[in-house]
């Protein structure tokens, strides 16, 4: 009677994504983008579902997921911190901001805090170079940073 009844919420959403891209040429990357939106990351089970739905070998899906830095095999924190290490930010001392973030959070780049609140990643330019150095926490951009700003910004979350 109803095919999707026993699927959980996320699976249902994923199915909708599959339906949406059914006839799209080169659908894999857009599908992975949306799948990561739903799950927050791309665990093996999700990659398997994608491989099945698009009829692509799992190895190819995995190959694509690991090629692009935007896709993650591990869960990220509730607040994703991205510190820009692009040229403009680097020249203006972004490294020192990164050191301070590591110190405050007690984690290294690529890791999440134990409580799952923050994850720390370095990225290459968010296009706000005019106000370097820059970091993003989820979609909020913080510019013209000084080392002494870091603690106050983290407190907001």
């Amino acid at each position, binding site marked *: 009677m109803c095919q999707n009844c026993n699927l959980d919420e996320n699976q249902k959403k994923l199915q909708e994504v599959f339906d949406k891209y059914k006839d799209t040429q080169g659908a894999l990357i857009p599908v992975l983008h949306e799948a990561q939106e739903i799950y927050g990351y791309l665990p093996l089970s999700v990659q398997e579902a994608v491989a099945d739905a698009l009829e692509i070998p799992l190895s190819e899906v995995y190959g694509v997921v690991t090629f692009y830095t935007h896709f993650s095999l591990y869960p990220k924190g509730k607040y994703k911190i991205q510190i820009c290490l692009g040229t403009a930010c680097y020249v203006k001392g972004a490294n020192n901001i990164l050191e301070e973030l590591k110190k405050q959070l007690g984690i290294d780049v690529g890791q999440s805090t134990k409580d799952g609140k923050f994850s720390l990643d370095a*990225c290459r330019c968010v*296009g706000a170079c005019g106000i370097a150095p820059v970091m993003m926490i989820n979609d909020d951009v913080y*510019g013209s940073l000084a080392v002494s700003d870091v603690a106050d910004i983290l407190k907001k979350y």
Partner: protein
Amino acid sequence: MKSLTELKAIKQKVTEVPDYKIVVGMATCGIAAGANPVFKELKRIADEKKLSNVDIQITGCIGICRLEPIVEVYTAKGERYTYVKVDAEKAQDIIQKHIIEGKPCTDYLICDDGEACIKNIQETKSFKKQIRIALRNCGNINPENIDEYIKNDGYFALGKVLTEMKPAEVIQLLLDSGLRGRGGAGFPTGLKWKFAAAAQNEQKYVCCNADEGDPGAFMDRSVLEGDPHSILEAMAIAGYAIGSDQGFIYVRAEYPVAVKRLNLAIKQAKEYGLLGNNIFGTDFSFDIELRLGAGAFVCGEETALMTSIEGKRGEPRPRPPFPANKGLFGKPTILNNVETFANIPVIINKGADWFNKIGTEKSKGTKVFAVGGKINNTGLIEIPMGMTLREVIYEIGGGIPNGKAFKAAQTGGPSGGCIPAEHLDVAIDYDNLIAIGSMMGSGGLIVMDEDNCMVDIAHFFLGFTVDESCGKCPPCRIGTHRMLEMLEKITAGKGEDKDIEKLERLAYSIKEAALCGLGQTAPNPVLSTLRYFKDEYKAHIYQKTCPAGVCKNLLSYNIDAEKCIGCGLCARNCPANAITGVVKSPYTIDKDKCIKCGVCMEKCKFGAIYKK
């Protein structure tokens, strides 16, 4: 949209002119600086005071990032006021004093480099030296409203092309204009289109490269956020010229605002029938799809970009076959950069002769630069080709902050090189920059001062290419790694005699042997710093010092006993407890404990701490 007459009707539709139009710069940089709360506050007070004669709008980036958030007021008489660094409080004043009482808030107006405040951005020295073609609408129109684009001649070039010109005439016009690609290599755009037009195939594609991978550049982002329709219009023109009905825009996922505005623009253009079937009542149809990148620099390279749109790992393909014959999904394809496209509608409207009078003999028109790093006026500028770097840095850019000395400007990102002070008077164009060992690149221009170590900068770029190498070809995958190791050794103070020669030899081998542009250009930052700053390399290798005081392993922090008054501030702030002493007599730093963070030097009020 059935005809040009219909388009003209929209352009000429008289909308009631409000007494005041207030626009808030809401590109990524504006939003980051706090434009959102300012916009909301303006709206809130205007509602609260029941002001019916004001229209509050958003706009894209006007180019002066350091002064964001920026609010501009246009009066019905045609006056324009540029308010800078606006916050919620200033927003209240602007409404109360300027709008309600009719007295502009002179204190908040833009100033010209420390001189008296003037009225608006167009009167500043740095703006007067610019010519805005690609950025014509950025900061002037509401990018989320297609009518504003049309009011500024938007979609008229497409109308003209479809109703009055043959595809071959469009291509000839571009050839005559001398427009060269703004994505880096400077390939003549008309020629690229001509090749694709000549290819025989019922399916062809038009792609727009909005991947903007150069870390430190944001020209394309600003155009996408500030004037998305110009890209759609130009892509449709390209489709007509080469015989394609489908376009793809490949945009970085790191640009959420650009993605949102592009999606909106595509939707509006479809509603108006400016994309879709039978545009302007002709038998030409064209559609555009957006594809998001996923954080891989190499995907800016044309063949890798196409592989990525196909849904695969973004690895480059050997050329030939060139995309004009065998590109996306194996079909003839053209790929142009965002800024290249942004120029095209204007060229069509104003003609090739108008365009090719701007610029130098071999580089026509203007170039947009994202100016950043150690320079006073960070932001976005558009200059005629042929301007000197000195004019860009000192007249438009306002010089180097804190009285420091200019050391070098980096253009071309990780594929480019640095330009030292001795070449400040070179006229900027494609060929001159190549001749001095750099390149135009896509428009990132990062200024470095005496505090930047050039070996460290070379190391930074190599680190970037090592991370971003896709791994397909060994010269790039392994070669750049080896170069990075050598640079690590040198910056760590472990450099040896002959290291420079080894670096050079490896650099030239990689340039010769790598598969794609990424590898072929990866050694450039090293070669160009070696060309102009070899002494700095030598100081690291033979004297084990870093003249700029950057490379931590070669540094030590010291206290000048004559200047130290023994206040103890440094010791209290030292995170490593490396500073000891007795109050009122000079302190000392324990070099074994010191982690070289520099906090003491920052905190000392007497300049008593120095590094060497």
